[in-house]
């Protein structure tokens, strides 16, 4: 009987070590959000965002923007403005706290400008659509792999769906072209609500 005890202990130790090793082998899992599903797409595609449809129609580069207020001067930047014109069609569900950001291949994250129009992706009531634009201030030297990411952040940990739109900037050559074609001033359109077709 005495022979069993050390062996039992060793077996127990072995399992503990195995558990520790598996944790070491996949450290990313500790931080990665395993409760997020990402729906990937491109410009022009209708993508599902927890029951709401998000479509990015076009992307425009601009050196300055206007909000359409009276007596305003164009707001300029040392970088470049990227405007995404989009449509959202609201479904049955209510994606909690939707947020939009731009990401590049270098993992740089850009946030929308802090204006009333162009500061976020807007959603309407069920059955209604919104056509609008969201504008980001961006570093023109870091736009390779530019991707729009729309996430919802619920209060509870539930299975969440994010949308990732590839904006078609695969290399520096395309980035250069987009920069050269940038308009000097972009007038941010106000969000328009309409009945979804």
């Amino acid at each position, binding site marked *: 009987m005495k022979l069993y005890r050390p062996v039992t202990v060793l077996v127990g130790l072995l399992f503990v070590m195995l558990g520790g090793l598996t944790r070491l082998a996949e450290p990313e899992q500790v931080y990665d959000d395993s409760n997020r599903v990402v729906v990937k797409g491109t410009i022009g595609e209708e993508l599902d965002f927890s029951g709401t449809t998000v479509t990015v129609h076009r992307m425009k580069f601009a050196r300055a923007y206007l909000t359409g207020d009276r007596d305003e001067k164009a707001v300029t930047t040392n970088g470049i403005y990227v405007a995404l014109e989009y449509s959202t069609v609201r*479904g*049955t569900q209510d994606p909690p706290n939707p947020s939009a950001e731009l990401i590049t291949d270098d993992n740089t994250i850009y946030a929308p400008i802090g204006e009333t129009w162009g500061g976020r992706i807007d959603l309407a*009531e069920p*059955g*209604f659509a919104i056509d609008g634009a969201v504008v980001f201030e961006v570093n023109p030297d870091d736009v390779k792999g530019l991707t729009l990411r729309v996430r919802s952040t619920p209060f*509870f940990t539930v299975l969440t769906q994010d949308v990732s739109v590839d904006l078609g900037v695969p290399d520096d050559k395309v980035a250069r072209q987009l920069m050269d074609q940038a308009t000097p001033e972009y007038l941010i359109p106000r969000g*328009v609500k*309409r*009945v*979804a077709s």
Partner: protein
Amino acid sequence: MMRSQRVLRLTAQVSLLVALASSATFVLVRPYLTDEDKVYRQGSITEVVERGPVSIGRVQWQLESLEVYTQLVNAEKKKIELDQPAGSVVILAKTFITPLDGLKMGADGFSCPAKLRDDRGNVWESQNAFGFTMATRCSDEDFPFVRNKAGAVAHVFVVPASAVSHLTGIQIDDLGDYRRVLLTR
């Protein structure tokens, strides 16, 4: 003798296994079935009442009608500005609301929010329609409420015209009792 002993042992083992398995299942599934808060937040209706009256919280509700309008006008017959894109209509949910004993009623009345629901699960929140000839909420100074007396309230909604045939009724949420009541017409 030997066989009966074996049978006895086998029965004991099987019953122990069954007991363990069932208690494990119970413990596993219990948080999902009995967590009222979580179940409530999933958004499903807990009871359906035709027309009413039904007491929810300390307020009694009765649904009179769901009416469709192209626009709302005020006392001077002028159009009330609502966010109505082309292709949408205005729904008026006419209700009788009675504040019961125990309801906290301040100088600005009380709150009686109702949402409009359709058979596809879409839920719309009510809109503000200032100047309408009826009360559109329970906190309007022009239409004060008296305890235990019914008052007429018309909840205003804007929905796509295509949704009208799907409308089922108004939804009243009661977080305190984890009830979500659908009042149908």
